């Protein structure tokens, strides 16, 4: 119970500080918008091309935006050594990770849901009929990005060349999430939309495995 009580308090802090500064949300929304608009005007894709290449482009932009969002996650805890204050205060250090990855997933999901209608208009794809299924794919994919991303953010915050370290560690590891999310999204944007349970299962499995690993070893990532 203490774990969830602490997580709730910390999640409240993450949301409060972000909605005050809007630092992460603004950066990611602008980044995704630039990519989606730029590719749309450069290639002027047909409906068929949009269905083939759109999901990959969408998830690539989500992935790079996420690496921008995840970078300051633990870095800003170092400014005033607030991470030490958190470690002294919480009952279970996993609550620090749980709150941060929940906030990261929420911010990422919010950005993605905001960007979907713009993507649909620019690439002429129909998303409204499959919107709930699409949100499920986005949720599992975002969680798959946020769990290892939060863990690696804790590692890279303590490392030299920290700005380079996070994408170097994260992007190769997230390749399977990128493939699974893209395939699941492609299925939903196809002429005959279908929810690809195999890829959804893969995403859910990836999330469970990495969340368990974080729960088991997360404490060591927070040590000085």
């Amino acid at each position, binding site marked *: 119970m203490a774990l969830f009580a602490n997580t709730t308090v910390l999640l409240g*802090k993450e949301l409060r500080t972000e909605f005050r500064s809007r630092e992460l949300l603004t950066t990611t929304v602008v980044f995704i918008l630039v990519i989606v608009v730029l590719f749309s005007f450069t290639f002027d894709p047909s409906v068929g091309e949009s269905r083939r290449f759109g999901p990959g482009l969408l998830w690539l932009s989500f992935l790079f935006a996420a690496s921008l969002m995840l970078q300051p996650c633990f870095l800003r805890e170092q400014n005033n050594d607030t991470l030490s204050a958190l470690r002294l205060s919480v009952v279970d250090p996993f609550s620090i990770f749980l709150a941060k990855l929940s906030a990261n997933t929420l911010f990422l999901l919010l950005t993605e849901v905001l960007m979907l209608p713009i993507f649909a208009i620019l690439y002429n794809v129909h998303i409204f009929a499959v919107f709930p299924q699409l949100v499920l794919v986005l949720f599992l994919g975002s969680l798959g990005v946020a769990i290892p991303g939060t863990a690696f953010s804790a590692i890279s915050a303590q490392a030299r060349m920290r700005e380079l370290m996070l994408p170097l560690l994260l992007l190769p590891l997230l390749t399977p999430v990128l493939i699974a999310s893209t395939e699941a999204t492609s299925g939903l944007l196809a002429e005959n939309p279908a929810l690809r349970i195999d890829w959804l299962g893969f995403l859910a499995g990836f999330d469970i495995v990495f969340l368990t690993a974080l729960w088991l070893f997360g404490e060591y990532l927070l040590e000085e």
Partner: protein
Amino acid sequence: MTASAFIPTGIRFEKIEKRYGGLYALRRVSLDVAAGECVAFAGRNGSGKTTLLRIAAQLVRPSAGSVSFPATMDGDHQQEDGDIKSPLQRPAGAALGFVAHATMVYDELTAEENLVMFARLQGTAEPGVRAARLLEEVGLSERRHSMVRTFSRGMRQRVAIARALLNDPSVLLLDEPATGLDPEGISWLANALRQMRDAGRTILMSLHGESEISALATRAVRLDAGSVVADTRAGSEMHAILTFAGA
């Protein structure tokens, strides 16, 4: 400071070593600090004071040795009941308060939001009431709704001290607590620490030179290159340790 019930707790450092690669920050430091003692650590920059305090706070894992928190410890008569002895285990029942070089509070939150959040994390009863009381004690009641980023260094330090006292600690660890405080702030801190020391709380603090705060110490320890080179409870020798060149 508000008086309340706490468990008198000492600290025992046993052969503590801390290495960063090939560099020794601490070399086999052994110290017994009795419950209620007020220990001032002196020494040059890099002598190991901060590392020792961070190890005591369980924030840094020692490379060798252990820290334990005997529930009571009275000179030669040591009671081992309730002893917690583990590299990074929080001492059960014995709350720690830690004031570091950095303020350890969030600039983007108000003073009150910071204290209420940390009080909630620590499971403090009535976090709002506790935060309000401490903000009043540190003289920041009128600025409780102001963002910490708008505070001066001295005001931030007061919030940092209030945060360290939220859980009513039986052991208080202070790393150069007078940093940024004006003379009035130093007098306030000295008075607050005197009350806590007199109430039987154990205080470990790192200091540079003599001050109103160092005068509270009942014991002085000088560290040099990670080793304890002097340790005394005698007044004249304490003066010598605290005024040692470079201390």
